[in-house]
């Protein structure tokens, strides 16, 4: 009961995730729900970097792509067990992120945007060109996810897995934000110089949150690879990076629950728009602009300000 008081949002989220499968009419709806859960988990990690710490990344799909392709290559070409591949991919992505983090996070504003964008594009160009490994533009197959002899198969199993991951990620993110480290990250967003003055090791914190969000993106990429079973280079592409950042901003910067709304809206929107036959790109662009013009702070913070609820 105490938990309901301290984390009402988390309890509501758990309840929604529990009830949701009974309302999903068909396999298509399950598929959308699973994709929303995967995207939302990536976006919660990205929001720690963009929304809370104030460091933009326009290349996060690159990390997602590294995870996805590493899992697919390690399991299908080298015969690794999927869980080991997932862990190795996450470790590799974390190492990559750690190596580039220091020089990249020294940059500010548009220069940081440029550097992260460049990193993402380099990754996606490598994936397109290394056809022997990745199948290039034609894509490559990824095997099923199995652990200890049990295979995750079918919509229901995937729903419970991804929904469970989403719940855990949400819980961890909320705890991180309330911890001293989380306060430090938010202080960096407020003013980097001021937080250094009060004794926050800003570089170390920025590097850690960057590595954390990259590793989380990699893990979700691995899960995604096993879920869809077939990868094309688009998963690591510039447009996917933009989609991820848009999910953060539409839902609301520095709002964990906003991420889930943002992911849900941005994942479902293209599906809804696909009936427009040719006009979907136009509609998507117009909706992006309109949302940012009329809800510049994103959905959840704007609504919260409107209805005056204080809880984070």
């Amino acid at each position, binding site marked *: 009961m105490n938990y309901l008081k301290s984390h009402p949002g988390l309890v509501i989220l758990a309840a929604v995730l529990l009830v949701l499968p009974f309302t999903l009419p068909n396999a298509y709806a399950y598929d959308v729900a699973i994709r929303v859960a995967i995207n939302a988990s990536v976006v919660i990690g990205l929001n720690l970097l*963009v929304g809370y710490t104030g460091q*933009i990344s*326009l290349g996060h799909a690159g990390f997602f792509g590294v995870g996805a392709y590493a899992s697919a290559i390690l399991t299908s070409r080298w015969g690794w067990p999927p869980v080991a591949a997932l862990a190795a991919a996450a470790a590799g992505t974390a190492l990559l992120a750690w190596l*580039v983090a220091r*020089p*990249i996070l*020294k*940059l*500010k*504003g*548009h*220069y940081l*945007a*440029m*550097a992260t*964008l*460049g*990193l993402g*594009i*380099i990754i996606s*160009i*490598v994936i397109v*060109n290394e056809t022997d490994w990745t199948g290039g533009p034609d894509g490559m197959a990824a095997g099923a996810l199995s652990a200890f002899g049990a295979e995750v198969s079918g919509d229901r199993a995937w729903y419970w897995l991804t929904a469970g991951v989403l719940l855990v990620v949400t819980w961890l993110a909320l705890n991180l934000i309330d911890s001293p480290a989380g306060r430090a990250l938010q202080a960096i967003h407020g*003013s*980097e*110089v*001021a937080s250094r*003055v009060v004794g926050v090791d800003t570089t170390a914190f920025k590097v850690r949150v960057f590595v954390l969000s990259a590793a989380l993106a990699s893990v979700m990429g691995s899960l995604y690879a096993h879920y869809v079973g077939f990868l094309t280079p688009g998963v690591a592409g*510039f447009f996917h990076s*933009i989609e991820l*950042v*848009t999910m*953060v*901003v539409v839902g609301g*910067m520095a709002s964990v629950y906003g991420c889930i709304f943002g992911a849900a809206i941005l994942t479902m929107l293209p599906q809804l728009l696909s009936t427009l036959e*040719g*006009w*979907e*790109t*136009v*509609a*998507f*662009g*117009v*909706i*992006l*602009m309109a949302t*940012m*013009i009329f809800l*510049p702070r994103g959905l959840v913070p704007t609504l919260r300000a409107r209805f005056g609820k204080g809880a984070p």
Partner: protein
Amino acid sequence: MSQFLQFLFSGVTVGATYALAALGFALIYNASGVINFAQGEFIMLGGMFAALFYQLGLPLPLAIVLAVAAAAVAGVLVEKLAIEPAGNAEVVSLIIITIGASLTIRGLVQVFMGKGTRSLPAFTGETPLAVLGATLLPQSLWAIGVTAIVVAVLAWFFGRTVMGKAMLATAYNKLAAQLVGINTRFILLLSFVLSAALGAVGGILIAPINYTSYDVGIMLGLKGFVAATLGGLGSGMGAVVGGLLLGIAESMTAGYVSSAYKDATPFVLILLILFFRPQGLFGKKGTDRV
């Protein structure tokens, strides 16, 4: 040697387009602090409109002028409908707004002009000139020459005219510019018109060499952004040098290293440069106000 010269020619030709795009980024960045991700679409619009008007039977010079004008109108629309209503939104929001604008433009072109590629004839024939064992397309001379003229005109505009100086003043300090009576909203609109026109000119110059289609704007725009950052955001000289440097680096990579990784060159280059000079080659080192 002749091979090197060949790569240099093609690098400078593409670099001229990047330089024009980068100048467009710099103009808008100076006037508003916004990185306009729709800049690439202006390049695309230039090439596509010129090819369309030419196919409709208009003489080439008229088609070109109309295409630049059409792109400038698109620039006005983006500024009036997307940037101005956003007001003082956060940097990330503005980036997403310009990306929304870019998707809208690309989508409209796809709906009305189709997904196929279009081409524009070379301005003055296709017969290559032989220079020291390398061949040079007449169109390359056009690209280099027109870019040089555009840069010279811009230098005159910013150095000698009241309007140009008003733009520089706005870039330097918007509030102070308003206080001395400069209409900064008009300056913002003008910067969008100018950079759309610059982008379109670049797109038209390159269209006879590479084909053009509704989706060429993405990569060209991103590379223009790289060129602008490379030279230092907001620096006009930096944009031109950055653009040429980028074109040459890309063409050398394609020639001597790997043509598959040609498109990766700008991004590797910009990462390396930003690692050592976080404000670009000619950028001013900013100070933070706490």
